[in-house]
């Protein structure tokens, strides 16, 4: 007991800021300045993204504005809408360390962190699947009108190529995403799971 008390007094008497030469006030000030800078940067970045997407949609709509082909319009509508939904949902569901509940008791924090990491990954995979599916529909609808002048076998061949190309892009995207998750998050999840079982 006395030994523990000795260790406690030794430990509590250790003033690391003076011993290690760390200036807490300066660190806090620099953090607040950085935080303000980051908030401004995030705002500018979101603004730039919104402008870029708006420009892209306007350009797409202008490029088909004089076409009198209903499937082109419907197809483009499906593509634009699914892209917008995909981007908005992606921003919402992506894993952010700022969303972690650091003030939870540690056991709950561990469970919550694991579920947030796994949840964001699974949600993305589902979202990506739905997005590619609608993209396939949109592009194929677009080609229904664009390929009207061609013979049916050729039209079917092009539809087949486009659909398969989209499938390859989907599989590749899913593969990269899984690999990235395994590299960036799985070690941390394994660590946390091991801790929760202790």
């Amino acid at each position: 007991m006395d030994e523990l008390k000795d260790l406690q007094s030794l430990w509590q008497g250790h003033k690391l800021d003076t011993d290690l030469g760390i200036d807490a006030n300066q660190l806090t000030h620099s953090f607040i300045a950085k935080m303000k800078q980051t908030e401004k940067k995030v705002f500018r970045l979101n603004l730039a993204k919104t402008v870029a997407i708006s420009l892209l949609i306007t350009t797409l709509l202008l490029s088909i504005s004089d076409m009198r082909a209903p499937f082109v319009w419907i197809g483009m509508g499906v593509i634009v809408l699914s892209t917008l939904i995909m981007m908005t949902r992606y921003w919402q569901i992506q894993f952010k360390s700022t969303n972690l509940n650091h003030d939870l008791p540690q056991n709950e924090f561990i469970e919550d962190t694991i579920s947030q990491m796994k949840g964001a990954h699974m949600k993305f995979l589902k979202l990506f699947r739905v997005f590619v599916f609608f993209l396939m529909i949109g592009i194929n609808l677009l080609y229904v009108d664009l390929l009207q002048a061609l013979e049916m076998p050729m039209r079917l061949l092009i539809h087949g190529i486009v659909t398969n190309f989209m499938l390859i892009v989907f599989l590749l995207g899913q593969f990269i995403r899984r690999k990235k998750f395994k590299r960036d998050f799985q070690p941390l999840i394994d660590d946390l799971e091991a801790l929760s079982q202790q």
Partner: protein
Amino acid sequence: MSVPEKEQKLKELIATHKDMIYRLCYAYLYNKEDIEDLFQEITINIWNHLDQFKGASKISTWIYRIVVNSALLYNKKDKKQRAVFSHADIEASNTPTDESEEYLEKEKKIAQLNAAINQLKKQDRLIISLVLEGVKYEEIAEIMGMTMSYVGVKINRIKTTLFNLLQENSNG
């Protein structure tokens, strides 16, 4: 809470709890840059959750939770720092203002204690540093989300391991 109020509150909290935060960081990492890095991460997490503090627990308990949870996820540079450090390392990183025999003896003991803590498991390091901070068992149970009896058993086991390690290190 307005931003200036939040800034003021953060500064007050850091000023009051900085020593405790540093010591907990130190139980986890020992390199000065990493401690500063983790300290900043803790500050960010306190800032992000400041609005959510409703006073359901003591402010110190709330801060301890943020500190231990932030330390738990701080593993980016931790892996290469796992080697047990020696008194020589401490001397190299410190800038002592007092070189008296008493001061050096105290520093040596702290280095031995940290070396022993560093040999414990990740979660045990955090728990023992809370014990060394003088945090009560009920509060540790609240911070860790464990039952009081489980915390008691765990702490006894960690203390035994720590004392054994201190003994081994001083003999070896």
